[in-house]
């Protein structure tokens, strides 16, 4: 898109030059920290060996042999891998759905409340968990779920129910993980959607009211259509990470319990377990490349589909 007509014939006009200068540090930052390191991706196809006395770049490009797709094989050797991938995709799809439905519902509800103070307090309270680290969250959930000292088991004992060894019961973990994820993320997404709702032109609602529209009709015909764009962007971005999960949630909150792995092991946790003892950077790069490669392809496909449905909804 042209910002100004190029009447003088020079490549950059004076104003453009200052705009370029302003963005130069960011461009350099991206080049240095996002694009240049991408060449390191070749480590996924090499058996990396450090050459004594040389740096990483020399060792990678000159001192390490090519091994083709050998580094990817460890991901598929494990007979549990299909379960691990199933878990990863299951949780991501559930999170994707709930991260859209719940925050939108809550933000629409909150936007209709006239008390500013109540709205502000609700936003702050629901946003707070987002800023807690997973280590803290892990301790909090442990305080509830500990077999002998946990609040829930104490409560169960009071009403005569035998305490449950939560960290050894796989069936409950999909619920616990989904709840924990929602508790931590709903506030963040809600604030995001609320900011979009508040940017909707108020005159639209006024006109609708003048025409006798009910609240539900205003939500359906004004609010939700305006949120479609941002919701589409959220879907596209989430699908870009379909094979990646939040390591903190699946490793810290589960406290690395082996007994519940059938319900909690995701690709990232598997990679951690496989590589904790041998620090093979080729393997971890291969795993990362595969996760992100598939995510990227999926992102482009969904983006294309959404663009075809409505050109305003696409991300790129």
């Amino acid at each position, binding site marked *: 898109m042209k910002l100004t007509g190029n009447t003088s014939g020079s490549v950059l006009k004076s104003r453009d030059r200052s705009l370029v200068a302003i963005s130069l540090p960011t461009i350099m930052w991206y080049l240095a920290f996002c694009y240049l390191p991408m060449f390191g991706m070749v480590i996924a196809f090499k058996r990396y060996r*450090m050459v004594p*006395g040389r740096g990483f770049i020399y060792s990678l490009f000159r001192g390490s042999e090519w091994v083709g797709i050998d580094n990817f094989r460890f991901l598929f*050797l494990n007979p549990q891998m299909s379960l691990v991938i199933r878990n990863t995709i299951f949780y991501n799809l559930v999170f994707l759905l709930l991260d859209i439905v719940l925050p939108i519902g809550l933000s629409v509800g909150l936007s209709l409340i006239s008390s500013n103070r109540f709205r502000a307090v609700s936003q702050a309270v629901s946003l707070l968990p987002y800023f807690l680290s997973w280590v803290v969250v892990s301790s909090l959930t442990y305080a509830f779920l500990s077999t002998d000292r946990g609040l829930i088991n104490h409560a169960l004992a009071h009403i005569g129910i035998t305490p449950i060894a939560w*960290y050894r019961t796989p069936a409950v973990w999909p619920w616990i993980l989904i709840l924990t994820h929602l508790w931590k993320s709903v506030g963040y997404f809600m604030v995001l959607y609320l900011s979009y709702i508040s940017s909707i032109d108020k005159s639209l609602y006024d006109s609708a009211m003048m025409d006798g529209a009910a609240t539900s009709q205003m939500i359906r015909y004004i609010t939700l259509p305006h949120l479609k764009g941002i919701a589409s962007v959220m879907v596209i971005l989430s699908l870009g990470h379909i094979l990646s999960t939040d390591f903190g949630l699946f490793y810290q909150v589960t406290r690395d319990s*082996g007994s519940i792995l059938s319900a909690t092991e995701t690709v990232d946790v598997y990679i951690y377990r*496989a590589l904790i*003892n041998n*620090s093979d950077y080729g393997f971890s790069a291969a795993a990362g490349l595969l996760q992100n490669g598939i995510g990227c392809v999926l992102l482009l496909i969904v983006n294309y589909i959404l663009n075809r449905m409505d050109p305003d909804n696409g991300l790129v």
Partner: protein
Amino acid sequence: MKKNGIIILISLFICLMILNGCGANPQTDEPVNLVWWVYGRKAPNALDEVVERANAISADRIGVTVEMIYKDEEQFDLDMATGEYYDMTFTCDWCNDFDDHARDGYYYDLTDLVVSETPKLFETVDPWWEIGSLNGRIYGVPMLKDLAVEAFFRMNSDYYEGEKGLTLPDEIAFSELEKYASMWKEDHPDEYPLYMTQKGYGQVFQCHENIVGEYLVIPYRYAGTSEGTVIIPIWDDGECMDMLRYMHKWYDAGYINPDAATTTDIPYSLHTPIRTGIAWSGFMGWSDPTVTGFNVKLVRFMGPYMSRSTQQGSLIAVNSAVSEERAEASLRYMELLYTDREFRDLLAYGIEGKHYNYYENTVIRTQAGSDDYLVDLFATGPVISASVVSAGEDVLADSDQWTRVYEGYEGIHVSDTRGFSFDDSGYETQTAALDAIWESYRSDLLTGTIDPDEAMGDMRTQMEAVGLFDLLSEAQRQLDSYLESVK
């Protein structure tokens, strides 16, 4: 125009800052200042003060100073892989792997230099040079310490001996722990006598030599027999399996905390009457009643067993990329650590009078020593050349402890693998997949949380699918040909 100029200038300045951030730190060219990578999760508070004092002494005596950089296991791997500069580095069997790195040519071949440049060092370490050798060449200087694995129960002697009137023996079988655990449980029904973290009783996996991961092993008890060089999967080691079965029984009996497999920490405030640990006879490090809340007696339940991995608890290697001059300086420094007790104590315990005091030829730490300079003894040099630590004036250690420990090694079970180390080149994929399977059961097994027979059955099915037995054949082939070559 003026405004544009300012914007461009500011932008250029920020760009320069970014570029500056990308650049490497300038290296000091001081020939005698050695960069020394030391094992430790966190550098002690008083590090600078102690190193400054040590540098003044070493500069005067041998013309060498050091910059000690503390690293944890992950940092070692990362910095080694990216070619960060160092002169001397901590290396061992379980961190910054000595055999692999020596095989890959990362470490300086010290074979001739150590004899010609530092004959005293050579003489002091002799006859243990094989620990730091690979294929007959010396790539690392062993920092001598306990060389065998001995596992102990750390038992509350105030309770068992004082209150219950028993005499704790020096050694018991693993299964005999049951009576001590049940005794405590009867008196304290709401407590767990074997309270443990997710690391569990890791010593159980030390009854055999680990050949590949922790799942392909050779039991020490077969040393000297025809089975002493036969590699087996862990589930075929009856002794280990029996210990795991006992643990599971104790778990079901309520002796072990139900969430052990997910517990990360046991505070000393929780007065667990029985803990475990790897140490050596005469070790006093766990015996300070002001820390534990009661007097502790060590009761051995396993070992001593010796193999290449138990011997390789601590070595210092020199970067193969450094000049001969710097390699010589490194050796001189190590010689000083071995031959000057006061200098060694300085790096081990801090500054005399501030961090520790001498008492009856042993060392007693001060509060400042415990707070500001508590480092792993093996990380800063040879343990045997440092003074031994007493827990207090009333709990004195044997100052000649090491002579006795090494005398005890004379008749012990030494593994028949004779320094063999498995080379996993070409098998990294399988080992990574097997490690992942192993890791998913490890904590549950070592805390008694799951039935070991069922778990090992499941694990076996999964591991077979990954090719465990191909790996076992390869490891056995490598071991046989190695033993043939060293005949």
